[in-house]
């Protein structure tokens, strides 16, 4: 079971604002999904290694060679707000 306080705690971790209505619904829905998921707790997994990657990859690193990338203008073009060549955001301090 997951209660209201846990929902609010997880929402804070996820940087997600939830309405009153959403908090209530989330508690019920997450509880029912977790009930189902918890069946994997019944399996004997002693000594089983966790999967880190499904396909063997030996040389995943490419050569470290400089090459052209996005221009400054392109990188900023989709931002909701820009100023002085950077992303503009509200102050970290509450207003």
């Amino acid at each position, binding site marked *: 079971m*997951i209660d209201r306080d846990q929902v609010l705690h*997880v929402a804070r971790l996820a940087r997600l604002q939830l309405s009153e209505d959403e908090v209530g619904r989330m508690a019920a829905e997450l509880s029912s*999904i977790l009930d189902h998921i918890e069946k994997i707790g019944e399996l004997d997994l002693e000594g089983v290694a966790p999967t880190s990657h499904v396909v063997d990859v030996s040389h995943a690193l490419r050569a470290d060679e400089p090459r052209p990338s996005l221009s400054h203008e392109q990188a900023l073009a989709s931002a909701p*707000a820009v100023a002085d060549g950077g992303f503009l955001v509200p*102050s970290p301090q509450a*207003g």
Partner: protein
Amino acid sequence: MSDPTTLTAAQAVAAIEAGELGAAELFDAYRVRAGADELNAFLWVADAPPTDAPEDAPLRGVPLGVKDLFCTEGVPSQAGSKILHGYCPPYTATVVERLARAGAPLLGKLNQDEFAMGSSNENSAYGPVLNPWDRSRVPGGSSGGSAAAVAAGMAPWALGTDTGGSIRQPAALCGIVGLKPTYGSCSRYGMIAFASSLDQAGPLTRDVTDSALLLGHMVGEDPCDATSVGHPEAIRLPQRRDLDGVRLGVPEELSGEGIEPGVLEAFHAALDRARELGASVQPCRLPHAPHALSAYYVLAPAECSSNLARFDGVRYGVRADADDLVGMYTATRHDGFGAEVKRRIMLGTYALSSGYYDAYYGRAQRVRTKIAQDFVAAFERFDFVVTPTSPGVAFQLGAKTADPLAMYLNDYCTVPMSLAGIPAISIPCGLSEGLPVGLQIAGPAFSENAILDAAFALEQTIGFDASPGRVA
């Protein structure tokens, strides 16, 4: 030529090569059809083919429908989400780029479940897609727009992505062919990420030949995706007409309980056809497959909660007004994400949070290992594992939206292969209640050529008519 949109993509390539059809004429015919879309499959349609298209490229200008979550330079790429409304990326995804260079220009962007999370396309911020076989039903998801557009003849072929079944399940529900390649075959660069250890791009096509033709131009290592390894052999066009000596394993866990009777009937009829072609069909076991869905719904949300952290109203997409920075983040994410995406972010954040990590994420990664080992054991005795693709046929719009768990069960037969990273195709194998049923054929990693051959042989003998218009 009377109506070039009735041709398969491979037939269109041949017609253009033979000088019987112009590439511009074909593009225009599809542009008109896509523009008159009544299924809400297209979110954007090109005005004209690109002027710099290479004329002698192997795919000859046969246009391509592309799932919304593939980044396409200067063209809206919103991943079905409100939080990316109007977003036009500054670059193009590698597979889209490769296909354009091979002569398959962008026809349009296709609707999907938001960030590929869903099995019915009802989670799109831009409205649900309708199934061309019955417009009161869902097309499946998350690549529902891709499947519906190909099934309805509005695109010759389309790109989708599959994380837990998002190519195969909508292909099954729309009566077309959908292939999830081996993890790592195709670059993920430029695919807006859902669960990076599972996401793969793949083709949705009218037949198996088109699937092979499109996949052949998608695979390849990409320096921009460290998990891409390419394919050890070139993808060939399938030729096989028999299944002599082919050993098919039918996992008990994925072919009995929970599958609709009509789906099972069509599945068993297809197995009879396989026997007639010379295959041996025997039961097999995937003992951990019943736990795949549980493991998946820990791992995929965990990865999604991390991947979707980037949507914070700073660099792209929409922003909600707030007085301070954290308030802006939380309000933007509240306004921009839909209910299912929020649910999965919450589930994933919970599973990764302090005190719960080992019980959920750690255990799920171990279950994943067991599932992969089950397949390795099965492939010692069998060439392929075959199952119904989806437990049921296309359901009514709204039928499962109130119950997330019921919706998740749509992926019951497709998730195990995703967790193991192995390739699997869905081909239409018959009808139940007048609606298409999909047959899934899964093989060992990088066995795409063998899978395509077996699928082709079955397709020829099943003779499924992939045109919903002729049924309605």
